[in-house]
């Protein structure tokens, strides 16, 4: 069973639909007991960092996430919340991955970074097996995570930023795999396989 974390900022329907298309049993929950029983956790998110963190804190989900050893996949804002902090509303994050989210410079290109883009500089990781720089994923975000030691693939728009990150059992993708056609479905499948076999 896969659990999708239910909180205010989640794009829950899209992620749930994507798992249904892959025939993966899943539940949408904010209950620790159900999260404890899941093999893997999907942590989606859209919107603003600060209210999203407040919503997690209101349910105690921030503590649960920080302390879990289960495979976690953060998507978009879910990935961003894994970091220490964000310039967006000067919000604190979960502090699982070091770094601070920054805003794209809108004087250089259109912001948000919206649409289909590729990634490069991939490192060896089960999540990225079989992917190349020809695969497109759907991005929509105005803040980005600077590349650091935990970046396992980077994307270029205005600057190089973290597209895929991994630290221990935590993984994150800046794009929306649930909205990224066949490539996105394949990436989700690889996370699920990792979660269900680890």
């Amino acid at each position, binding site marked *: 069973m896969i659990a999708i974390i239910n909180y205010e900022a989640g794009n829950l329907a899209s992620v749930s639909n994507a798992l249904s*298309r892959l025939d993966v049993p899943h539940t949408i929950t904010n209950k620790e007991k159900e999260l404890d029983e899941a093999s893997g956790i999907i942590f989606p998110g*859209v919107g603003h960092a600060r209210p999203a963190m407040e919503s997690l804190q209101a349910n105690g989900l921030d503590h649960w996430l920080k302390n879990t050893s289960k495979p976690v996949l953060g998507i978009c804002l879910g990935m961003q919340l894994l970091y220490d902090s964000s310039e967006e509303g000067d919000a604190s994050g979960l502090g699982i991955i070091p770094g601070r989210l920054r805003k794209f410079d809108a004087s250089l290109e259109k912001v948000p970074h919206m649409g289909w883009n590729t990634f490069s500089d991939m490192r060896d990781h089960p999540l990225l097996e079989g992917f190349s720089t020809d695969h497109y994923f759907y991005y929509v975000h*105005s803040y980005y995570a600077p590349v650091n030691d935990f970046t396992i693939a980077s994307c270029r728009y205005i600057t190089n930023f973290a597209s895929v990150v991994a630290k221990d059992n935590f993984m994150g993708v800046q794009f929306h795999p*649930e909205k990224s056609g066949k490539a996105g479905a394949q990436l989700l499948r690889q996370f699920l396989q990792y979660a269900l076999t680890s």
Partner: protein
Amino acid sequence: MLTKRIIPCLDIKDGRTVKGVNFEGLRDAGDPVELAQRYSEEGADELVFLDITATKEKRKTLVDLVKKISRRIDIPFTVGGGIGSVEEIADILHAGADKVSLNSAIVRDPDLINRAARQFGSQCIVAAVDAKRTDGQWTVFISGGSKNTGRDALQWITEAERRGAGEILLTSMDRDGTKSGFDLDLLSEVNQQVSIPVIASGGAGTIAHCRDAIKLGHADAVLAASIFHFREIEISLLKEELQRAQIPVRQTF
């Protein structure tokens, strides 16, 4: 590299896809869920659904349709047509839409953009603007193009951006359904002013029109309806030709 997007638009009336010319004279173009799936498989980068149904039951029907569509397709989609409150936006997003397109409602109540962006994030708030050339400027029309607001389109678009819209869906009423090409002057002017993505709409008839909207009008995405519904232009061919013109597009395998 970030690619330019090709976006088929489905006008929905009473659960069917329809298409008119200059906002009038509708003809049937098929089942929206089937069309959506076809486009998704053929390489469309996004989809836009605009509900032009005017009945009281509309909202529930639309939410049901959004649910059906979101179960079937794995690319982003936008839903618009008569959405007028934060509650309605929440219903549509929770049903599985990725963005909502707001048009008449935000002209009547511009603060709706602020409230919606605060609650759901700018990334899912599309400001749709129907602009018509009148006396050397572009004027905003609402209510499906039937009502002249007298507002200057460029000023309104700037305000929509400032209030928190994440994207502009810019329709030239003069060109809509005519297949005579996008209004490149309008597109260029708007793109000089805003720093959020702009979707060009109204007038697509040929591959060259789409190319020009991107190359000359600096559009981030092109939206079209009838050329796709009636298979006048295949999305794959359009993408091949755009790539030949040095425009980055997403290739699907």
